[in-house]
């Protein structure tokens, strides 16, 4: 195979890996929007928190796998507390108040992270099992990324099964499409809100853990992820899970190839894409018409 195709293939796998990572965060973001009609800015902070917790746990317990077990529940509990304690209070004042609340929370969480961990990027050593490189089609490829790819795919699969095959998944999908109706039919919708918010936060935390060895933990990772999430929900359509998946993969590949071809203006492409989608089809690829 020619070296050029090798590079392209490599970038394509990078893009796929990153896209799946994005989906782990964006899925919670889009479900919360679909369910509660709140653009949850704080969601990206959960991702950042996950990475930093992974750093601390790996440092103190010397075992990366432990952070896999501890971090997602911890971040999920934080999400539930935020939903119960703060968001619900603002709920009666309307969506704008809820949105502004998550906006304020995002800044608070970012600041707390800087206070606790400082503003220098912190490298996280990945699991020893996947530390090497593997030879893949003539070139060497970091094992950890392949692990990321496989793990994200597994999480994706579990998530889809839960949403499609279980009763609670069915209720969540129903509530996304019409929460008033589900409420009227006797389901405890506030409880659903809490579950989705908490699970979304846990998933974002998990994504943070996975990303930590590959990206290291740095204070602006929350903001970066937030901007990516914005682009993804817009392209995929607000509230659409499948849209989020397709859009995540698109953005992953776009960033991967953007860096390869036009490194200076790689950042512009995704926003260009977002602007085009908003101008031509504001409801996104899979969103419902307004």
């Amino acid at each position, binding site marked *: 195979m020619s070296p050029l195709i090798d590079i392209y293939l490599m970038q394509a796998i990078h893009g796929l890996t990153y896209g799946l990572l994005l989906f782990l965060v964006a899925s919670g973001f889009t479900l919360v929007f679909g369910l509660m009609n709140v653009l949850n800015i704080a969601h990206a902070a959960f991702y950042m928190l996950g990475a930093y917790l992974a750093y601390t746990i790996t440092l103190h317990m010397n075992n990366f796998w432990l952070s896999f077990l501890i971090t997602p529940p911890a971040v999920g509990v934080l999400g539930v507390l935020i939903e119960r304690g703060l968001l619900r209070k603002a709920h009666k004042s309307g969506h704008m108040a809820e949105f502004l609340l998550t906006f304020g929370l995002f800044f608070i969480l970012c*600041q707390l992270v800087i206070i606790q961990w400082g503003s220098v990027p912190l490298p996280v050593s990945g699991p020893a099992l996947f530390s090497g490189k593997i030879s893949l089609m003539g070139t060497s490829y970091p094992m950890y990324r392949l692990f990321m790819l496989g793990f994200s795919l597994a999480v994706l699969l579990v998530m889809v099964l839960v949403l499609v095959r279980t009763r609670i998944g069915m209720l969540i999908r129903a509530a996304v499409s019409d929460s008033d109706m589900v409420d009227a039919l006797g389901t405890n919708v506030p409880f659903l809100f809490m579950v989705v918010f908490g699970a979304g936060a846990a998933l974002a935390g998990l994504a943070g853990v996975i990303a930590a060895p590959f990206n290291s933990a740095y204070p602006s990772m929350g903001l970066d992820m937030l901007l990516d999430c914005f682009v993804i929900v817009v392209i995929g359509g607000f509230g659409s899970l499948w849209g989020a998946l397709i859009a995540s993969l698109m953005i992953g590949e776009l960033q991967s190839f953007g860096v390869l071809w036009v490194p200076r203006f790689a950042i512009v492409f995704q926003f260009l894409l977002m602007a085009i989608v908003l101008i031509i089809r504001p409801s996104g690829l899979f969103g419902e018409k307004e």
Partner: protein
Amino acid sequence: MISYWNWPKVLGVGIGILLLFFPKMLSETHINLSIEIFIFALYAVSFNLLWGYGGMLPFGHGALFGVGAYTAGLIFNHIPHMHLLLTLLMAALSGLVSAMVIGFFCVRLKGAYFALLSLAFQMFLFALAWKWRDVTRGDDGMGIVRPSLHLPGLGSISMMNINNLYYFTLIIIVLGILACYLFLRTPLGNSVVCMRENELRASFLGYRPFMTKFTVFSFSGIFAAIAGALFVLFTEFMGTNSIDINMSMAAIFMVLIGGAGHFLGPVLGAAFYTAFQDWISSLTKHWWLIMGIFFIVVILYLQGGLISLLQSERIRFWLGGQNKSANGKNTESRKPV
């Protein structure tokens, strides 16, 4: 006895006179702080035209501030002899043009869509400012020299003198805020509020939602850009900090804390935000944390913002005035949430 309905006027005139004598009374640090407050007050008022009155919350208002800043910065650098007022005019024009381009696409959308599309435009402009190093010097930024102001009859007034800069900014800002106020008093300004309340009904009444929102967006862009130009003049530096996302976020903070429900709420918010930042950052470097907590407290417990404290029954009672019901002015904006 001061009755309720004229105490704000008395307070306003008092503060006005006080502002005129600030340079005589305050130290240079505080004059600098006041200038910064003025600049952000105009920026916040221009933001509130969209949010409080138009019901549109943009995430990318900093783009217009930044366009004004970069226009002024580039002129200061490359055409240092251009008249200062002409520079401000050019900045205003650049703000108008970019707001017209951005607004043309944005104002058709609502809610989160509107917010995110304006953010997308800001990110383009930010990337341009950041990466087009030949022109903007990227994130290194560029220092500028404050030009003098040439006025017929008064000769050349040096802006390096902090008192002159203070009066110059004060005059421009007061004129700008006045222009925004007068704009809202026009029938066009009223129809902006109409769009916020019920766009469908307004369009049945014969108003054109697109044109109305487009006009207010463009108009708001002028003043955000002027604020940006003054910011460069004041800080003597043109850099990406004037166009990055924090600038947009700052507008939301200032307007929410001050109160979007009143024309002067954003002014109060800008004053509080800037002064508080200055004070708290001398005590701790984590001032964002405190600001964030404060922000959340305001959302949960004080939805009209700080200005609603001044409007509350309690203060009316203290001042001994009788309760006056809503005076029917339809240019009053509502609570943001």
